[in-house]
């Protein structure tokens, strides 16, 4: 731990990561004053949502981060660029020449847009980068006037910019030098779906093309492609990636690669200087996403507060919406060896692909809504394997896990907000301790405050009426299933005693002593058993008639009838050999079904993976025990006639 003396902790950068460092320090009760330098003139804002601002989905106030301005220990110096670091004197100098000594220096200088050096004419008016609020202000001004905007770069940022610019009917062309858009995140098929969606939205996409020149006398008039074609346009947005902003660090002789090199504690080569976010390089890798940056901010705050902690490489995952199309990507799907197994599922609207190496997901791509995404990301970051049946289910249904759409049954440690690492359990705790609305939860946990894509999940948790409401049907189902379970259990342990006297119980005994009665009750039982099968068909075929929960209730009721017929047929005597096996199978089958039914009826209430996996086990057992029945039944009936 660093001795906390008179000098403040200085943070360079007011981006989301820099601000998060200060927030985390405050949260951990840091008594040391903080000074935050921001080169931009604006109050700290959420850079991640700039594309929403550009498209008009959010306004400026939505982007404001005002969590630090109210803190008396924190002084924020905006529009004040730090020009030099003096590591030996432990001080920074701003562009006005003011010297600020520091206890500890945290660099969160972020990145600058990468502009290809081969491209000439980038200084012409009408050529924009897409990085900061200033860029967005300029673009908003252009948006309404622009007739044709060319976006260079088909990455995530480029596509978002293209979409935002398209809003007012502006013609937009995206130029991508790779064979498809979002080349790092998507495979060819997924990219084709994204492109199709973009094209249908009116955005032209030119792939395998490169831009060499921006032409114009006083302002941009056209661009020239590498193959000589010229496109007339009035706006060019360059979105060809980022370069970590490391000039300050280089000047201070800190070890730098592509970014500022840090260890797992976010410490640079100088023990008093730390670096976080897009400007730093950990284990040879610079992360251009907000999630890892915020996690790094958390690490650095903990390190400064003397806690032992270290940074873990995140699963490179991103969820975004491209032209309202949910796109999820994890890992680098195009660079994996072909020895890995690839699992694909698609249904026209959705496309999902997993690349799996011995159960571990190495990469994943999904286009369209996919509820498994959060759990999948958790599995990957915890290095958990996928089970073979999960992969089979994925192959067949596109879902890895059953019923994940109900967020309340997610496991406690499943992440809801991956930007801020907030788990389902944490949110549930906040809700139990009094949070009443989505905004309450966001204020208390910060879940959903960064990219906002998880607010729907939070709403499901906080407003139960949006979760499946308890219906009278599920109460009925519970009663019927409990009755069936109790009866099946009773059948396993007790049986009707035979009459001890010929009068008057003997007549009842005829049910079990008279062969004709036995055969009649046996065939009635068989008929009732067959009545349970339509549910299986309803589940597995395209028959969609009637509500499923009505079918399920009916199925459970027929299950009880089966037990009634079984009682008449056998008196719940287990018999021996083949008969015993049949009884055991049949009663076990019904009991497992009853367990599933009871758990199903509590679905709206219980949560956690325990219930989910118990129900899954029950359902598997229910089906598994059904399988021996045909062979056993055939011979049970046959032998009654044969012998």
């Amino acid at each position, binding site marked *: 731990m660093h001795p906390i003396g008179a000098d403040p902790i200085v943070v360079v950068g007011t981006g989301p990561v820099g601000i998060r460092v200060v927030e985390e320090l405050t949260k951990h009760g840091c008594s040391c004053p903080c000074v935050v330098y921001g080169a931009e003139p604006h109050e700290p804002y959420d850079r991640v949502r700039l594309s929403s601002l550009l498209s008009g989905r959010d306004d400026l106030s939505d982007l404001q981060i005002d969590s630090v301005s109210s803190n008396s220990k924190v002084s924020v110096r905006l529009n004040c660029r730090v020009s030099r670091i003096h590591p030996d004197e432990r001080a920074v100098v701003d562009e006005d020449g003011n010297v600020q000594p520091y206890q500890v220096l945290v660099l969160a200088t972020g990145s600058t847009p990468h502009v290809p050096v081969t491209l000439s004419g980038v200084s012409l008016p009408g050529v924009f980068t897409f990085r900061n609020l200033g860029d967005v202000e300029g673009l908003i001004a252009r948006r309404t006037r622009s007739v044709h905007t060319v976006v260079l770069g088909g990455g995530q940022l480029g596509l978002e910019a293209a979409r935002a610019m398209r809003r007012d009917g502006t013609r937009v062309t995206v130029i991508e030098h790779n064979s498809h858009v979002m080349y790092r995140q998507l495979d060819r098929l997924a990219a084709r779906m994204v492109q199709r969606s973009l094209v249908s939205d009116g955005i032209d996409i030119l792939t395998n093309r490169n831009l060499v020149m921006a032409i114009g006398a006083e302002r941009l008039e056209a661009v020239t492609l590498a193959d000589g074609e010229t496109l007339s346009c009035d706006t060019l947005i360059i979105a060809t990636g980022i370069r970590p902003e490391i000039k300050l660090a280089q000047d201070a002789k800190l070890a730098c690669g592509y970014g500022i090199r840090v260890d797992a504690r976010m410490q640079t080569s100088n023990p008093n200087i730390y670096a976080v976010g897009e400007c730093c390089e950990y284990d040879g890798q610079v992360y251009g996403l907000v999630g890892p940056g915020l996690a790094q901010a958390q690490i650095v705050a903990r390190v400064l507060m003397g806690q032992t902690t270290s940074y873990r490489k995140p699963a490179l995952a991103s969820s975004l919406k491209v032209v309202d199309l949910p796109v999820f990507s994890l890992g680098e799907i195009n660079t994996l060896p072909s020895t890995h197994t690839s699992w694909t599922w698609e249904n026209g609207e959705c496309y999902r692909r997993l690349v799996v190496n011995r159960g571990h997901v190495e990469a994943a791509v999904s286009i369209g809504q996919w509820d498994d995404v959060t759990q999948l990301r958790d599995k990957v970051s915890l290095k958990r394997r996928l089970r073979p*049946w999960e992969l*089979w*289910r994925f*192959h*067949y249904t596109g879902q890895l896990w059953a019923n994940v759409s109900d967020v309340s049954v997610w496991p406690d440690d499943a992440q809801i907000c991956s930007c801020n690492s907030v788990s389902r359990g944490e949110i549930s705790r906040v809700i139990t301790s009094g949070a009443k609305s989505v905004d309450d939860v966001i204020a208390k946990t910060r879940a959903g405050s960064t990219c906002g894509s998880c607010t729907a999940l939070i709403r499901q948790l906080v407003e139960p009426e949006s979760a499946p409401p308890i219906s009278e049907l599920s109460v009925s189902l519970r009663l019927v299933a409990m009755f069936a379970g109790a009866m099946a259990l009773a059948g396993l342990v007790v*049986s009707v005693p*035979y*009459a*001890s*006297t*010929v*009068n008057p119980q*003997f007549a009842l005994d005829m049910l079990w*002593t008279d062969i004709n009665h036995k055969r009649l009750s046996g065939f009635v039982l068989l008929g009732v058993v067959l009545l349970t099968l339509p549910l299986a068909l309803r589940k597995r075929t395209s028959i969609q008639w009637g509500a499923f929960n009505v079918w399920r209730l009916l199925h459970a009721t027929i299950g009880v009838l089966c037990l009634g017929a079984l009682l008449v047929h056998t008196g719940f*005597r287990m*018999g*021996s*050999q*083949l*008969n015993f096996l049949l009884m055991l199978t049949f009663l076990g089958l019904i009991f497992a079904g009853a367990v599933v039914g009871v758990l199903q009826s509590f679905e709206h209430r219980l949560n956690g993976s325990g219930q989910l996996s118990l129900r899954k086990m029950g359902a598997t057992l229910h089906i598994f025990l059904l*399988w*021996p029945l*045909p*062979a*056993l039944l*055939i*011979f049970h009936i*046959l*032998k009654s*006639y*044969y*012998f």
Partner: protein
Amino acid sequence: MNFNIIAWTSWIMASVAGVVYLSYVMTAPDVDRTVFVPGPMTDGHHQIELACESCHGTEGFTDAEVLQNACIGCHGDALEEAKDDHPKSKFTDPRNADRLAVLDARYCVTCHVEHRPERTHAMGLTLPLDYCILCHEDVALDRPSHEGMAFDTCASAGCHNFHDNRALYEDFLVRHMDQPWLLSSRVTLLANFEAVASQIPGYPVDHYPMVQLAADNADTPADPGVLHEWAASSHAAAGVNCKACHQTDQGWQDSPSREMCGACHSEESRSFLLGKHGMRLAEENLLRELTPMAPGLARLPMKSDAHSKELGCISCHGAHEFDSRSASVDACMNCHDDDHSLAYEASPHAALVRAESLGQLPPGSGVTCATCHMPRIEKDYFWTFEHNLVQHNQSETMRPNEKMIRPVCQNCHGLSFSIDALADVELIKRNFKGQPNASIASVSMARERDER
């Protein structure tokens, strides 16, 4: 491939395999069909559980007649012998049609269903014990003494049996009610083979004239010990030489088969196959081959070192000595290990055997295991002579044990005492050491009615 396709394919394959396997088990000859048994069999039939065909027939899909014929095939003679009180003819009589409607006693299985241990009572009865009420509800009208008696005591109190009442019917009781507990003449039947052999049809008396043979007369050289045993046996006494048993159409046999014994001892062999010791060998009834009975298969307690012995003629009679004395006690004790058997040595019956062997009592005074359980009975040949055969079917004098009274007990004991003794479970456990505690009312009730 799709998980579901694999799962469904494996299921279909497993089901087909199961069906094929079970079809094979159901129909192939000489296969263990235990898997189809709906429940363990009664004590009477458990030995032949695997010979499904013996009752169900060799053809599948049989009807009630096949079962009925199987019952009668083994038990018909005994029922006739017992002068069955409820024969089929009683129920096929049109005058009893109303009773037939209540209880279809034309078929054995109406009252004796196999494979139903949960409702099987003593004697393999699978009806509630008060079944007599179905027809005899108004018995007290005729016999006021029976007023208020519970109907489940008819057969359990020692008064009545459904089939065999030879020693229990009223006239018999009246006739013997004044007998003392111990009769003045107390001997059992003695062997009389020598006297009647020449008259027994089919006995090859020409080959084996009744001449006492000595060791020197043996027609085949053999070990002196063996020769000595043979010379002392009843075989030597009846002129039966070595080759009589060992020489067959296929030449010399070291171990003669049971059929060789049966060639002369056909009646003993026949009853042996009907009894508990030989029923597994009765291939004619079973319609399949089973291994011989072994004590290890029995449900009664058996000595642990005897479990793997196999029962045949020589297992009890020995190979050359053929000593009926040792066959009647020692052979039993080699295997049987229940209280009744173990108490025999200290019983008054055993003391009689010792006294007889010391010459203190006349021949036939001793009471061995066989005296009661495999007694000598008189087989009547055309009203000209009687052969005192050993009944090798134990159930002839057992189950219910009142069957023993006339052929066995009444040789020495009075009727009333015999009925009481056989009703006293504890006394039987002690092998009749002491006096019976039970007192069956039937004799005194018969007396009262007679005196009125």
